[in-house]
């Protein structure tokens, strides 16, 4: 793939798509479900966007014998229909959220409302590194296994740390998970890829860090897509898992300290990257993860790299190493991709 794309260097894919239930989401779902059991809770409530978190939570609840209620926006239920069936098959009940943009933001609202009404018996199993403390920290800690594995494996495979780690960012759980163990390794570039939707100019995107300003939403202070009055805006992304107007506060922090960079990739570029990976490597990525891949394939890496002086440990190395977090698999997106193929 790297060769065909004209990239000098080696691209490693962190294959979170091979996890049980098909995405990194199970790392956090299983961790929190075990905590819920330990706290004596009998019921789990959760939101889901793409449905990957919903499936992971439903599976964790099935195996740990917990009642499970998943809130999902109606729009997302339509575009991620296979995951709706999987959630039901796993024994969870799924509740459609029918107001507002009928996507992830509203699903989070409803899950919160359910939770506060039933807090004694119920644990809210938030799926991204957002929400009030301690959720962003807890989710990051459960997802940091991704970064720890990358570190161990890349040292084993390549004998050194990578030059860049690239991950998609909606709420930002897979990204913070892969970034976190590398934060002290300053020579390792960290790149978060936000959903540019159908264009950054017209506002139809979900790029909270690139286009949002600091505000308070869902219990944390972070970059939020909002209007001048502090009302939260609707977002657009082809990828339901990135379609959220906020972002984990730790990403907002990494952006402000300059430790990580955040870029955007539009719907069409992500679709192209998904097709390209499918045809060159035989791996169908989730459209979320395809955003991260698209950034690497479309040369954003080259252009920015030339502008930046090489520094750090690997300045003498000729071959660059890029790790892309392939956070999930694309089965759920067949409907969307098929539709676009039809159009093309």
């Amino acid at each position, binding site marked *: 793939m790297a060769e065909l794309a004209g990239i000098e260097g080696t691209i490693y894919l962190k294959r979170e798509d091979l996890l049980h239930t098909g995405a990194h989401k199970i790392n956090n779902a299983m961790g929190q479900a075990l905590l819920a059991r330990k706290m004596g809770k009998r019921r789990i409530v959760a939101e889901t966007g793409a449905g990957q978190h919903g499936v992971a939570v439903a599976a964790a609840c099935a195996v740990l014998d917990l009642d499970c209620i998943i809130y999902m926006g109606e729009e997302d239920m339509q575009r991620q229909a296979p995951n709706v069936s999987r959630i039901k098959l796993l024994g969870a009940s799924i509740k459609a959220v029918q107001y507002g943009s009928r996507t992830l933001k509203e699903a989070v609202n409803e899950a919160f409302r359910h939770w506060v*009404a*039933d807090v004694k018996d119920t644990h809210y199993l938030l799926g991204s590194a957002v929400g009030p403390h301690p959720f962003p920290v807890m989710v990051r800690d459960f997802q940091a296994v991704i970064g720890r594995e990358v570190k161990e494996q890349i040292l084993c495979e390549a004998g050194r740390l990578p030059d860049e780690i690239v991950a998609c960012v909606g709420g930002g759980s897979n990204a913070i998970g892969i970034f976190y163990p590398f934060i002290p390794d300053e020579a390792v570039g960290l790149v978060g890829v936000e959903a540019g939707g159908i264009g950054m100019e017209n506002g139809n995107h979900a790029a909270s860090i690139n286009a949002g300003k600091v505000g*308070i939403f*869902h219990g944390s202070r972070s970059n939020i897509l*909002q209007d001048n*009055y*502090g*009302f939260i805006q609707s977002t657009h992304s082809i990828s339901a898992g990135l379609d959220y107007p906020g972002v984990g506060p730790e990403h907002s922090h990494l952006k402000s300290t300059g430790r990580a960079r955040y870029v955007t990739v539009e719907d069409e570029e992500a679709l192209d990257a998904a097709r390209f990976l499918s045809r060159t490597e035989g791996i169908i990525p989730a459209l979320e993860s395809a955003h991260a891949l698209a950034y690497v394939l479309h040369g954003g890496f080259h252009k920015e790299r030339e502008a930046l002086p090489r520094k750090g440990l690997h300045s003498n190395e000729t071959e660059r190493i890029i790790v892309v977090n392939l956070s999930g698999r694309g089965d759920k997106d067949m409907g969307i991709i098929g539709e676009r193929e039809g159009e093309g």
Partner: protein
Amino acid sequence: MGDISAVFAEKKHTLLIAYLTLGYPSLEVSLQAVRLLEESGADIIELGIPFSDPLVDGATIQQASYQALQNGITPPKCLEALHSIREQVKIPLLFMSYYNPIYQYGPEKFCADSSGIGINGFIIPDLPPEESVLLEQAAKGHDLDMVYLVAPGTPQKRLEEIERRSSGFIYLVSVEGVTGTRQGLPGHLEEFVARVRKATSKPLCLGFGISTPYQVNQVAKDVDGVIVGSGIVELMGRNDWQRELSQYVRDLKSACNGGSAYAAG
């Protein structure tokens, strides 16, 4: 004018606190309703500044907030519409909203402007005391009260912190859950109120899920004020809202006074 503590100090019966969402169905109607609420016996009014994602609110206030936002209501428009409210209404007025609109407005400016038109305090349910120093200091500087919320599940240590930080009154959330009319009343209410009473000498007002005169009558003897919101907002959407609102508030007020007509339900 409209000093919250003074109103509690002078009270002869349990106070009635009425909530409405500004801009639903329109700002003009909201202003008429504020006057009517005072005339009909409300002792304090909570003015809701609508927000896009009203997390602690149930379906009624969500719907009203959505409608208000569709009508183009913003915090500056609310303040503008209320600029001469003190020529019309004497009782204490509180703003109820969520933190982000206030944060974007600028906490200091929001306090200055609110105080400038005669607002007496704030209720911001998504702003916990741990995070509220900025707004609280600005509020103090402008003589505005900060009302914090306590729920049945609030741990003792946190209750003491909220008690220390609250001014005006303490808002007891009757149920674990969101706002909205409900049948009956939750259990363990007396126990909950007694627990908070033990921790404070500040006035206690009970809200969430209280909408009928019967419910008000049941709780009035235990608390210093009863807060009714969704029941009022439901009426605001009707054609004949003035007559209905006036009667409803009079009935609630009578129940606050211990009116025996409601004791039997």
